[in-house]
């Protein structure tokens, strides 16, 4: 009898809805995201503009759809970079150990010891703002957290009896790392992915909020949040809708991550 997993269900539905919403925004938005309409400035939500318009008369729903898409794209790339290199570094360090492991672990520790935001600011100030630079900066910062998780798994696994028998049967190091140990890290990796994904969305939003991420006129959730600050009195729903989108995205993935973790524990 399978236990009912509310986290997984809610998270799954919420995430699926958000992804559908964003996917739709990639192909179709109600209005052109950059078209300004002087006749429809600062309108409150209506049937024409479900989320109202901003002070330039741009449709907020369209901009939220596209902004969420670019946030999602950046978060995906960041997590992909962090996970890919984290996996390689963590696996090699954990499996072989030794001096290289000690050095790389210290490097990862020192990266984590810095406030990550500060470090991202440094990289951006050297490389300049922009979509790809922010992916690069955040991607590097996300490597240590994945590397550490993967390394721990490899360290615990490498001396277990089933790995020893694999070695006796003549399995090479690469085969042991990929075919024997990697499948054992997947559950941990999966929840790390969802957590990392949330952090990536929030970090991207904060960077764009400060004007260091996606450059206008391309919409981005963080940048729009910043924009909405100036018109909080005249168009309070602007901030509300943008903020709610970020919250729903993060919430969906948090619930999904929690649900996956519980599912894994039960299995």
């Amino acid at each position: 009898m399978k236990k009912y997993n509310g986290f997984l269900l809610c998270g799954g539905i919420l995430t699926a809805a958000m992804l559908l919403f964003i996917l739709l925004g990639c192909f179709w938005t109600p209005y052109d995201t950059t078209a300004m309409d002087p006749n429809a400035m600062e309108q409150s939500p209506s049937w024409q503009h479900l989320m109202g318009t901003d002070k330039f008369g741009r449709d907020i729903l369209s901009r939220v759809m596209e902004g969420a898409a670019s946030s999602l794209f950046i978060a995906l790339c960041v997590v992909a970079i962090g996970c890919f290199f984290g996996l390689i570094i963590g696996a090699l360090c954990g499996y072989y150990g030794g001096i290289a492991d000690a050095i790389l672990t210290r490097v990862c520790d020192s990266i984590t010891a810095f406030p990550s935001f500060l470090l991202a600011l440094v990289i951006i100030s050297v490389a300049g703002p922009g979509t790809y630079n922010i992916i690069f900066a955040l991607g590097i910062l996300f490597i240590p957290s994945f590397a550490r998780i993967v390394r721990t798994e490899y360290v615990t696994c490498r001396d277990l009896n089933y790995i020893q028998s694999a070695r006796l049967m003549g399995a090479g190091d690469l085969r042991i790392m990929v075919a024997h140990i990697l499948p054992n890290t997947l559950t941990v990796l999966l929840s790390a992915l969802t957590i990392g994904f949330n952090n990536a969305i929030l970090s991207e939003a904060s960077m764009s909020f400060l004007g260091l991420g996606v450059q206008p006129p391309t919409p981005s959730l963080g940048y729009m949040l910043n924009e909405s600050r100036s018109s909080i009195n005249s168009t309070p729903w602007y901030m509300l809708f943008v903020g709610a989108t970020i919250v729903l995205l993060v919430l969906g993935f948090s619930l999904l991550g929690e649900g996956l973790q519980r599912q894994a524990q039960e299995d």
Partner: protein
Amino acid sequence: MDKPILEIKNLSSFYERRAGGIFGEKERVQILHDISFSILPGETLALVGESGSGKTTLCKAILGMLKDYTGQVIHRSQRPQMVFQDPFSSLNPAHTIGWILEEPLRLQGKLSKQERKAAVVEMLEQVGLGADYVNRKPDELSGGQRQRVAIAAAVITRPALVIADEPVSALDVTIQAQILELLRSMQRRYGLSYLFISHDLNVVYELCDRVLVMRDGRIVEQGDVQRIYANPQHEYTKQLLKAAQ
């Protein structure tokens, strides 16, 4: 007479440790002292001794995992396989039983995919589990069933020598008897030799042909099971036998 499949001549092994913290002087400690013995084809040799007597180190030497040693380890067969004491860490939890049993054959690279699948099913039946175990995961199995799978995985490549490190001491007494019987039937079928490590002298008496008694890295007595049990020479062997009764 058959040639021994494994011969160990004058094996001594050492390890380095630092006395007195990380800045202390390095010290070379001897673990095994001048060990010589051999294992004949189809024979079961018991290795008996308390923990810390060097049994594990001797195992590592046979498996080629020691770095600092003198003497000779001569194999006259392909690599030996191993059955571990703890059946819960000897099977990879991320894979199915089918995958686990097929892996040694895959690594050997002699059989085609169909032949491997067939060999896995055949082996499962020989160890008393059915073909429907192929898709099960290790955590669905009991300790005894896991140990059957572990034995199947060790034997499936038809090695000449299997090292069994206390293979039944983690199991219930009733299951112990079944696993010992399985080990015996595998030996009859494939002409295996076992190096059977144990501290349970009753089990040793039941299963083994010859006994090596180890203490502090030395072999203190070796000989036929009957002879040693009837007429132990060394004081330590007498103590062990007394403790087992």
